[in-house]
């Protein structure tokens, strides 16, 4: 029974990892860009939530109303002013520019907020739990986060496959120059995609802030979790990303149960095993 509980916790954490991954996956799908600063942007969102919560005196979960638009606007500006200039066949510029961005964000946050560990208090919901019978219990907050993660992925799927914007994303990803012939301004499409990605990052950041301690240096680890979830799930598939996140969460939970020092290692090993046995991921979408 204890193991079942452990696995359940792992599944719920997996939802959070899937949210880390969804924004990453989206950007790669639309413009073949991997944003090395992605994890640091999640941490940035957490700090924005910190500032918003302090300034407005509201529950951190409500600060989403501020954090999401702020991060989305930041994403649009970032893509329009900086990242659009790096797109092209050469993979060095976007990689190095986003790496530089990662360093800037980490050190900027360090300057502004010091290396002190923070955490946002969401109140009673943090300790509340749901008893599922048979000795199984889940925390209400983790459950909420998981449900939101599933909802976000479902919403992204719907957006991509049922709306005009999603059509524009897919068309631009297929063929940039013909997309222009449809009247689409590529710069604007890419900037919207980044804005969307950072909106998801904002949600992930707020959840991160409420769930655990955070400080400016934890960005890269979030990037790696997101990346591992994307690769394990399969490139191009958002639901696959959810599966990948769950696998990662469960692997880490099992590892932690065996020995607290093995938590991260267990996750990485699960990733390496999937990479060795099924490099295309578990649910790859064939890219058209």
């Amino acid at each position: 029974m204890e193991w079942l509980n452990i696995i359940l916790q792992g599944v719920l954490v997996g939802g959070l990892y899937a949210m880390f991954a969804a924004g990453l996956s989206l950007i790669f799908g639309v413009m073949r860009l991997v944003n090395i600063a992605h994890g640091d942007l999640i941490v940035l969102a957490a700090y924005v939530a910190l500032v918003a919560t302090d300034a407005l005196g509201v529950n951190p979960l409500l600060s989403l109303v501020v954090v999401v638009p702020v991060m989305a606007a930041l994403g649009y500006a970032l893509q329009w002013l900086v990242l659009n200039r790096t797109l092209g066949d050469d993979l060095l510029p976007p990689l190095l520019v986003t790496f530089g961005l990662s360093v800037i964000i980490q050190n900027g946050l360090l300057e502004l907020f010091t290396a002190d560990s923070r955490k946002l208090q969401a109140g009673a919901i943090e300790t509340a739990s749901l008893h599922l019978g048979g000795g199984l219990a889940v925390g209400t907050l983790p459950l909420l986060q998981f449900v939101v993660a599933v909802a976000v992925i479902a919403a992204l799927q719907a957006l991509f496959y049922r709306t005009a914007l999603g059509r524009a994303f897919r068309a631009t990803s297929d063929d940039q120059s013909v997309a222009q012939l449809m009247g689409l301004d590529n710069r604007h499409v890419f900037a919207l995609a980044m804005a969307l990605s950072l909106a998801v990052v904002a949600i992930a950041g707020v959840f991160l802030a409420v769930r655990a301690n955070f400080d400016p240096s934890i960005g890269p680890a979030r990037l790696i979790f997101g990346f591992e979830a994307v690769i394990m799930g399969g490139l191009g598939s958002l639901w696959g990303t959810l599966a990948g996140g769950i696998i990662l969460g469960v692997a880490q939970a099992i590892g932690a149960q065996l020995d607290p020092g093995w938590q991260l290692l267990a996750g990485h090993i699960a990733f390496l095993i999937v990479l060795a046995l099924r490099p295309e991921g578990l649910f790859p979408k064939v890219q058209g």
Partner: protein
Amino acid sequence: MPDPLLEVRALDAGYGDFQALFGVSLAVAAGQVVAVIGANGAGKSTLLKSIAGVMPSRRDAVRFDGEPVGDLPAHRRVARGIALVPEGRRLFPSLSVEENLKIGGQLGRPGPWALARIYELFPVLAERRSQPATSLSGGQQQMVAIGRALMSNPKLLLCDEISLGLAPIVVREIYARLPAIVAEGLSLVIVEQDIVQALAAASQVYCLQEGRVALEGAAGALTREAIAAAYFGV
């Protein structure tokens, strides 16, 4: 006499060090069908790409609806009413037939062309509307490409080698639809290697040879010898 809808003035165009067009001039009146013929490499596609804005040109080199548009990027020219059916169809593989058509209408320009009317024009597409666009036959894909361009309700439709790679019977089928397309005053520029179809469909013909206009005139007035001479440069 009113300004032509499209005016190309002494257009130069090239790819890096290679110049493809040398001072090409051309005019298309409203409602007119113009054919541009020439051998491979003569510069026909380059001409269409320059008109559509896929390739850059001097501000005044392309004038549309009385205004210089040479410095406008491609997506802004679509908004003005220029649509290109690109060489090789270039449908979006991730989109279905219907989605390819719908994205053509992304800008929402007012006009007679809508999904229902495209399906009327090309009934076979209605049957396959949910299939991935690239799973259709070559001829059907060409219909999707044309329909997609029409969905933007253009004033000027540019067709780049729509007969390429298609069986003659399919080509005839597509060209048979052209009258319905231009019936409401749409202007057309067709680039073709199939001279017979081009001359049958058009009222004015330009022949390009190595990046220059070697011959121009009314379709009916040009002799076969003159065309052959201009085409091959003998």
